[in-house]
């Protein structure tokens, strides 16, 4: 409970005594590049395979001959857009980007770099963390879109190669009864998860105490806490936005 209070004070500090826009602009760009390079390869790899595996498994489960084949890709689409792309990728995002944010801030803490900023009269939370949060809010939704596309392409390729369903059927299923709100929903989730992962990981890293060992512990804790927050938020958002009014 005390921890949560401290987290909100931390969030409050993000926005007070801001540094100039010009300073932040450059930092945000740097962070964006870092996040992108850090995770793009893994995102593409994981999402393509998930798309492929979902296709195979859905086909395996739909044995009845009267179900048209295009239902397979329809199911893959729904799974990808609603859950695989935004949520599962968020967990990977936490593992890759969140842990490195916590490690980075933790190292800055124990080597007194954060103290050095503070003693110059710079709000270190604003200076160090805000760019990370903004960059995550920019990059993560883009990565989710990339992941979604890769998943669908992965399904397409596998469906085609294994002969589960023809390209025409796959494409038809992808477009069949498509509800654009699911994409909006996925993007809303992406923003929420990006914020949670970046702020929680930064918080954990920022308040590291001790030495190199504790930096490692902070990184691990950052991932665990982020993942729990993602799952809770995922459930809440589904309740809030998807339950029939």
């Amino acid at each position: 409970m005390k921890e949560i209070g401290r987290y909100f004070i931390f969030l409050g500090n993000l926005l007070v005594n801001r540094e100039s826009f010009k300073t932040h602009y450059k930092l945000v760009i740097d962070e964006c590049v870092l996040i992108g390079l850090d995770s793009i390869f893994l995102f593409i790899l994981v999402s393509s395979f998930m798309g492929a595996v979902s296709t195979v498994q859905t086909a395996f489960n739909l044995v009845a001959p009267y179900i048209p084949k295009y239902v397979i890709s329809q199911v893959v689409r729904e799974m990808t857009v609603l859950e695989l792309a935004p949520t599962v990728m968020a967990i990977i995002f936490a593992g890759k980007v969140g842990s490195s944010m916590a490690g980075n801030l933790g190292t800055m803490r124990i080597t007194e770099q954060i103290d050095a900023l503070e003693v110059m009269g710079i709000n270190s939370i604003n200076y160090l963390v805000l760019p990370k949060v903004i960059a995550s809010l920019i990059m993560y939704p883009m990565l989710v879109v990339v992941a979604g596309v890769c998943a669908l392409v992965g399904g397409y390729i596998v469906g085609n190669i294994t002969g589960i369903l023809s390209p025409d059927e796959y494409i038809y299923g992808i477009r069949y009864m498509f509800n654009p709100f699911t994409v909006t929903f996925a993007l809303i989730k992406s923003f929420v998860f990006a914020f949670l992962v970046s702020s929680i990981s930064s918080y954990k890293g920022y308040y590291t105490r001790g030495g190199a060992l504790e930096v490692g512990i902070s990184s691990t804790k950052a991932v665990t806490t982020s993942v729990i927050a993602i799952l809770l938020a995922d459930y809440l958002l589904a309740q809030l936005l998807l339950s029939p009014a």
Partner: protein
Amino acid sequence: MIEIFNISKSFGDKKVLTDISGTFEKGKPNLIIGASGTGKSVLLKCIVELITPDEGKVFFDGRNFTDASRKEKIEIRREIGMLFQGGALFDSKTVEENVRFPLDMLANMPRDEKQDRVNLVLNRVGLKGANKKMPSELSGGMRKRVGIARAIVNNPKYLFCDEPNSGLDPQTSIVIDELIRDLTEDYDTTTIVVTHDMNSVMGIGDRIMFIHQGRKLWEGSKDNITHSGVKELDDFVFANKVMMAMKEKGQV
């Protein structure tokens, strides 16, 4: 001038500082000396509130820092230059960017002027030409000197140095000590230097505060440090072989 009154600090149930008061004057370095682990770094951090003391008050030239608003604290902090015990260089920035950082963030001056200033201070700490190196490529002593350069680049009114010459060879040590003394005299800064190096003590120790296990046991200058009558201080001073030899010859 910096005045501190009754500073105390505990971590958990471990009392690190007990009731420390004192005055640090302008124009000559003020030394804080004491054995390892007695709380020197913690005291320095309490003065600038990187660690919030449990009790006590700090005044910067009569301005109450302890009870100041957040905004006033930032104002005062911008007049401080600080060298940390480990250097605390920003490891993602080059030497030059590190030293220029306070100017970039706080000073309003043209690029050329900043560059001149950076080169000037790097020159003074004997690091001419190291501009483009990364902190990871530097030796411990070089990191210290970059830290000093960064601390003084903005002409601070208050200069804090936590063990400026640990890890330096004796000759460079003297250069750094003299640099700190000259800056303090030239710009009339209030300078606090934490050290346990007897060389520094005998070199620039015009004003010395001795801390032992979190308490201030003695205050004075290098001229009377050898006959303070404080046992802990004698132990500290004469742990140095040269000082001991001089004592045996009756020279101090």
